[in-house]
């Protein structure tokens, strides 16, 4: 389906896909809240949520009920429109980002030729939402968190794009399905093997782009209370939370598609491989969150400008030379 000649059936498919993506986001948030708290517990040698439901499985459901029932408190002198627009703006662009992802050989909502451009372009909206949330909530912690979010997001977007661009050079296509098709079934024919540096850079930048520890400066509790979402309670906070986990899932899917062979697997190709790989990446993100301490802000920017950016340019240059003179 091309974007130019969109038909009624195409529209129906899009609507169904959007509904499925919303369902995926909500289920993913519930599963990840549980998995994250269990993971944190196990790493700290305690059981995590345990009392609500069998092994605490109902804990995220109860938590979301609590968030739904909470009073929405609006501080004085907020920019009323932006204050409520920001959580929605954080949540909805993520919907679009899931559409070009090839979950399975035939399971792609929007088969666009330049899928990765679409994803990278609209991923910036999350950043804008963080900025607006911090700016609108009339709170110095919020403004500081928003400033940090923007400088961090803008900085880390560059090595991320360059790392992905190396794979695009190698494949010769920006279509996500073609990038998956160019990789083989077995782990040694995936892009992670011929682009290990790009994979490493992408792994670092995806943690930073999703504002997760150790790069969770925009919401560093010890300095900024909760950063840009300090003043949000109830569903406003829940939407930011939902968006954070959805963004995590998205970058994990992109990681699986670009470097880990997407829906291709040793036994039977299908969407289950995409999901297994994406959730392994998610568990890795959870693992590093509970291992590393938060970096300082100057360290954060030094890592990016002094190491990741030159390395990604070097990697891109080598890839270009190899592709041009030696062939794929």
């Amino acid at each position, binding site marked *: 389906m091309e974007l130019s000649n969109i038909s009624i059936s195409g529209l129906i498919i899009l609507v169904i896909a959007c509904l499925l993506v919303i369902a995926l986001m909500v289920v993913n948030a519930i599963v990840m809240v549980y998995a994250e708290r269990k993971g944190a517990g196990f790493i700290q040698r*305690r*059981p995590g949520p345990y009392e609500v439901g069998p092994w605490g499985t109902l804990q995220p459901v109860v938590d979301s009920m609590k968030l739904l029932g909470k009073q929405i408190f609006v501080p004085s002198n907020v920019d009323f429109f932006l204050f409520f627009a920001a959580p929605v703006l954080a949540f909805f662009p993520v919907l679009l980002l899931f559409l070009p992802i090839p979950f399975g050989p035939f399971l792609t909502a929007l088969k666009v030729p330049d899928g990765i451009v679409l994803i990278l372009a609209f991923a910036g909206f999350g950043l804008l939402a963080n900025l607006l949330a911090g700016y609108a909530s009339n709170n110095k912690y919020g403004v500081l968190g928003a400033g940090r979010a923007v400088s961090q997001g803008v900085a880390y977007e560059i090595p991320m794009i360059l790392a992905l661009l190396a794979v695009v050079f190698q494949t010769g296509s920006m279509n996500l399905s073609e990038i998956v098709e160019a990789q083989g079934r077995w782990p040694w024919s995936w892009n992670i093997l011929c682009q290990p540096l790009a994979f490493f850079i992408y792994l670092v930048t995806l943690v930073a782009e999703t504002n997760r520890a150790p790069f969770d400066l925009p919401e560093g509790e010890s300095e900024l209370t909760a950063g840009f979402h300090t003043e949000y309670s109830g569903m406003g906070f829940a939407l930011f939370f939902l968006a954070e986990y959805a963004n995590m899932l998205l970058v994990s899917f992109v990681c699986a598609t670009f470097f880990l062979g997407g829906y291709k697997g040793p036994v039977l190709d299908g969407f289950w491989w995409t999901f297994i790989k994406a959730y392994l990446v998610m568990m890795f993100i959870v693992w590093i969150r509970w291992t590393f301490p938060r970096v300082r802000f100057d360290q954060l920017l030094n890592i990016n400008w002094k190491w990741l950016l030159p390395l990604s340019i070097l990697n891109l240059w080598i890839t270009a030379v190899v592709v041009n003179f030696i062939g794929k």
Partner: protein
Amino acid sequence: MITAIWDQLKGLYSLIVGMIVTGRYFFAPQKTVHYPRKVVDPEDLAAYRGPLELTRGKDDESRTRCISCQMCAKGCPGNCIKVVKGTEGKLPSTWVYDFSLCCLCGACVEVCPASAIDFSHRLYLVVTSREELVMDLLADLKERVAANPLKPAPDVPAAAGQKAADAPSAGAAKNGEV
């Protein structure tokens, strides 16, 4: 330049070491005790500082070693100890301890010349009013000795019997063997 790169590689290696540590902890057995269903093993309570108790006497276990010197009462920053010397030698007639004022600093335990007081291992202390936290430790000592009488044999250290007396009721069956 080269040292800078080498430092970064060493830093990356340290990150991997950290991840191995947390990865190992992930699969290690948990330390949490699910309280209402399970209780802490008395062996793990050896260093636990509960409310004060009087240690057992040397010859007659139910007689305190306290010599009513008032060192503990004077040293206490919270004024939670009240000792009154009785008529019978140096033995106290009253030994009242207010746990609601106690900060468990241990100054009294340290300063006691007769080693008459010690921290108990009463982990599961529950009361419904502040008044119940004011404890008569002489009566408490008598009760404990009555519940768990004299040392079974002279070679068994007194501490073992003491620990058994303070173990929670769920562990009482186990302590019958001591």
